């Protein structure tokens, strides 16, 4: 996502004109524009078909979501497709293995969609589904927007999706972030996919409806019991090179660890916080998601791993090993790690 490069002009008069019009907004002017536009994006009334990525109650929308589409050879089994999705990520495989087996089928238009398993713990809700294009045996189906709502009407924050199509069939894993502070007990869920799309069209055409396959919406209802997690008790903050980082909260579950960091003073270069490692019980997992909440003092940063901890107990640490800047030219903060102790009672 970079700015379009300016045109170059050889003719001296044209170059003079271009130079005169090449006004760079001053930082405060740029911030003024940014604030308005990003507020508009955050509050945009997105149509139902596009609601999945609406910014939620927490402003830390995960824009750094990693998702892949891998294509298996013809005849690969459904479990093989999911295996492709999980790759080396333990947390995703754990969620699949421990998920409640469901078989909720909805057929509409050209697509038959089936939720085969779902899983919930303190940190996340996973939906595992298979979709099949009934009309075109060569056209894979994959995703539309995904919406998850529980019986209280709470909409869960979409976190990431990963899929593996095989000819006309696609497996998909959709992950949602749970409402704070965590998810416990049993819940009834309504999971909606307004429509499916051909991922090949989506890759070349950015418009919201590209590759749309006739049919939908697809609405699935099911109940899940959260498999819980553990809430850690944070210890004292750590200061390195004049920067103090405090662990504000941490929730550990079988599929992830999620927490908040507070950074003081607020770095001036809008750094992205990379290499945050959670260690407890002889196991360590590195965070894959980071979301700073701009405008907070001290700067609050949400982080999450994609693998979790089974029955964690005792002392642990969150090690912040580097603060890497967003841009290559802005200085980052690196050095001895900030070691933030916590205890899991």
């Amino acid at each position, binding site marked *: 996502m970079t700015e379009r490069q300016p045109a170059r002009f050889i003719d001296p008069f044209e170059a003079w004109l271009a130079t005169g*019009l090449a006004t760079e907004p001053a930082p405060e002017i740029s911030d003024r524009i940014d604030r308005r536009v990003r507020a508009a994006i955050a509050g945009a009334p997105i149509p139902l078909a596009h609601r999945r990525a609406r910014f939620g109650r927490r402003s830390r929308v995960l824009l750094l979501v990693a998702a892949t589409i891998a294509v298996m050879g013809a005849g690969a089994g459904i479990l093989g497709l999911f295996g492709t999705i999980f790759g080396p990520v333990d947390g995703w495989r754990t969620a699949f293995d421990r998920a409640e087996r469901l078989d909720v089928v909805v057929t509409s238009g050209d697509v038959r969609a089936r939720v085969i398993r779902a899983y919930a713990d303190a940190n996340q809700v996973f939906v595992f589904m298979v979709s099949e294009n009934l009309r075109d045996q060569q056209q894979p189906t994959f995703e539309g927007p995904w919406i998850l709502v529980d019986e209280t009407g709470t909409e869960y924050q979409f976190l990431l999706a990963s899929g593996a199509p095989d000819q006309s069939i696609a497996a998909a894993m959709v992950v949602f972030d749970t409402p704070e502070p965590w998810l416990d007990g049993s819940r009834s869920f309504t999971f909606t996919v307004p429509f499916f799309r051909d991922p090949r069209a989506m890759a070349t055409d950015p418009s919201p409806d590209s590759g749309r396959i006739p049919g939908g919406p697809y609405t699935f209802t099911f109940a899940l019991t959260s498999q819980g997690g553990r809430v850690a008790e944070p210890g004292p903050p750590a200061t390195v090179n004049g920067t103090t980082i405090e662990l504000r909260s941490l929730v550990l579950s079988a599929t992830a660890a999620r927490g908040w960091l507070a950074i003081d003073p607020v770095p001036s270069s809008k750094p992205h916080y990379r290499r945050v490692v959670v260690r407890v019980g002889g196991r360590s997992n590195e965070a894959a998601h980071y979301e700073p909440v701009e405008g907070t003092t001290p700067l609050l940063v949400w982080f999450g791993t994609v693998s979790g901890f089974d029955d964690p107990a005792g002392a642990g640490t969150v090690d912040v090993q580097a603060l890497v800047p967003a841009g290559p030219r802005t200085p980052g903060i690196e050095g001895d790690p900030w070691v933030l102790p916590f205890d899991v009672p």
Partner: protein
Amino acid sequence: MNEVLALTEERSTSIAQTHVVEPFESLYVRHRTAVFRYARAGSANDEDAADLTALVFERALVAWPRYRPSGGGELAWLFRIARNAAIDDARRRRLAEEREPRAQAGLVAADPQESLAQAELADEVRRLLAVLANETRDAVILRFGAGLTAKEIGAVIGRSEAATQKLLARALVALKEARHD
């Protein structure tokens, strides 16, 4: 790895985000400076240009779900919105100033980040552009300020690529003459 995977890896973000929030975020990041430059060329100061730039993207966000790639692509689409917003903004400011003339109207705010020489040059170019008719001035700003091609500019102002090239050529002649007067 096949074509689907290769194409998807290029995007390296969620399918979901790529096609919903990401495209607009991406559009904004790619073109905000170009839109600001277009806005700044017709505004009295940086603040007015910033407000107009934000208004353009706010309007574009509302229209984004209906956007379909067509002649001129997303840049032409975006700058059509920008041009309409600029016309509306100019009309509004004119009406406001008729009611209550602003003491600072026409002044160019000093930008602390911009060198004095650059500020003077920008001011000189903006004054020079005032000799052109509105449509021609827009075409010149879109070409030399926002970096659009003649085809893209044509899609913004409703002319063919060839007609736009002629318009730009005539504009350059007029500007050179005006500069030497």
